[in-house]
């Protein structure tokens, strides 16, 4: 079975349990903490995937790191993953859980790329527009790319809304290339 399938199984199990126990929001924040911690620490990632380190040691590390930071249920879940020898997939599982959470709460992630940084007001305005367009809550993050020259690109999941000058020039070039008007 692919890693994707396994991660989805664990993530949806946690989701169902959290809903049953009515601790969904708590678990969601916990998982975000775990996600950020693992993402930011390369050592932690290496430790999780290392075949040399014993499972019991890994469990101890996880307990030490997350004890007192996350709720008891979330910690139990992490321990359960380690017990099942799936700690190498921990990061994927948590990521999958966060994706499921977004889906449940009707949130989509969007990334705006622009040649200069957007101001707060601009971001708010764009978020509002995108929310109208997608009819969902939009979590907008931004990045800067000077090569775009002007305009901006928004990527919502797999859909790209391209209003950049760079892309316009590209299209213009194509238009000229395929045009068969001659001098005669």
């Amino acid at each position, binding site marked *: 079975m692919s890693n994707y399938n396994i991660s989805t199984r664990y993530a949806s199990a946690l989701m169902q349990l959290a809903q049953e126990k009515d601790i969904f929001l708590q678990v969601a924040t916990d998982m975000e903490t775990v996600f950020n911690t693992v993402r930011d620490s390369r050592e932690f990632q290496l430790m999780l995937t290392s075949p040399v380190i014993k499972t019991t040691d890994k469990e101890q590390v996880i307990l030490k790191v997350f004890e007192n930071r996350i709720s008891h249920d979330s910690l139990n879940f992490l321990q359960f993953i380690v017990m099942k020898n799936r700690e190498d997939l921990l990061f994927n599982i948590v990521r999958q859980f966060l994706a499921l959470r977004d889906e449940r709460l009707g949130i989509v992630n969007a990334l705006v790329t622009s040649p200069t940084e957007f101001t707060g007001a601009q971001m708010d305005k764009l978020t509002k527009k995108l929310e109208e367009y997608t009819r969902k809550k939009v979590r907008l993050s931004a990045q800067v790319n000077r090569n775009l020259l002007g305009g901006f690109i928004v990527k919502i999941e*797999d859909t790209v809304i391209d209003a950049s000058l760079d892309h316009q020039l590209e299209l213009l070039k194509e238009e000229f290339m395929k045009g068969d008007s001659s001098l005669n």
Partner: protein
Amino acid sequence: MAEVRPDEVSAILRKQLSGFDNEVDVYDVGTVLQIGDGIARVYGLSKVMASELIEFPHDVYGMVLNLEEDSVGCVLFGDYSLIKEGDTVRRTKRVASFPVGEAMLGRVINPLGVPVDGKGPVHTDKFLPLERKALGVIARAPVKQPLQTGITAVDAMIPIGRGQRELIIGDRQTGKTIIAVDTIINQKYTHTEDAKKIGIKPVYCIYVAIGQKSSTIAQVVSKLQEHGAMDYTTVIVAAASEPAPLQYIAPYSGATLGEFFRDSGRDALVVYDDLSKQAAAYRELSLLLRRPPGREAFPGDVFYLHSRLLERASKLSDDLGGGSLTALPVIETQQGDVSAYIPTNVISITDGQIYLEPNLFNAGVRPAINVGISVSRVGGNAQVKAMRKVAGSLKLDLAQYRELEAFAKFGSDLDKATQRTLAKGARLVELLKQGQYNPIPVEKQIVSVFTGTNDYLESIPVEDVKRFEKELLEFIELRYNDILETIRVERELKDNTVARLRSAIEEFLPKFKASEK
């Protein structure tokens, strides 16, 4: 050189610019996870359709074949070494399709519709999807018009009708392509005013070359050009050097173009040369896509691969314009093994087969058709009446000859009847021999077969049969051209025509001198 005025240039630029919309572009994307061997796995593209065309960087296109839970498996039609992991892939939102139109005639095209003959762009305004569901029962009519191949042996014994699927099967180097190419060349007649007058509709031809050497394809194209057949023919090329995905879709491109002619009420002929190579290409990409292998490592749907292609050949009912699409698939067997997987599949799908044998070929019987196991299941109704009349006993005579031939090798004591059968058989075999690129019009075929089945060749030595036939036809053409004309127009042999034909042959017989030994 004429001077270029700057204002002219700007006028042109302005004209081009006018068609350019400055609008926000919205498209769906994915990321390449894995690439290699012409197969890509793409993450994202969540709304992509099966068999949709997708665009990779560097103008490489691909087609989606596998829709999986977390990724999309696709095949690439271009150079996959240009694509890297992490590249962005874009949806085109249209399923793989092929440009169709009259402008395609006379051109050499690749399976994506891009011309490869260096004659500039093809101007078509219509795209049809590569994969289309074959027509149902209601839309079809029985096959009833003949499609003359110009090969006497085929037209007499294995007649092909418009809308039929007739398999050409045989080992390598047995003349499979020749039969197909001769058939295309013979359609030249259908495009003449003469044919129009007697109600024969023109046949548009499509030759699909799959996995062949480029030199062979070039040869076929130049032969078609030489015989003036390219005017009504499109050649679709996926040479051996092309990626497997292109070889896989090539026959579907051909079928799509053929359907365009069929659906506009015209008749079309499409040759798939050859489908064993296409099956091998499909096997390659199926295995790379990790689909489970079955018999001979072909995937489970290799039967469907060919059946959905050949089902698209059809004769339309008159309500739908009465067009037709005839298919001549070619299959290459290995050492005459027709019971291999692909040959049995295609034999069961088609309406008959022309079986070519290397033994016959090497013995000088060309076309090397094994009459015993070659059949046409529906063509009989489509055969020209006159031909049916004269060729009725031909197949039987040849079958008897083949049976006795084996016996005759053992002993010399044969009774009169056996000797007669053997003599007649040998002469008929000789009569049915025919050169390459030399299609014979149906009325001449009828006269030839008539002399053969009516025992006029008895007195002619076997080695002189071909010369006799040639000279007889010349004689009739010169003196009694009206007989040929009558057969051609009436398409049946009335009693008085038979009588005149007999007297003409009898007049010629004493004039013919057997060559000296």
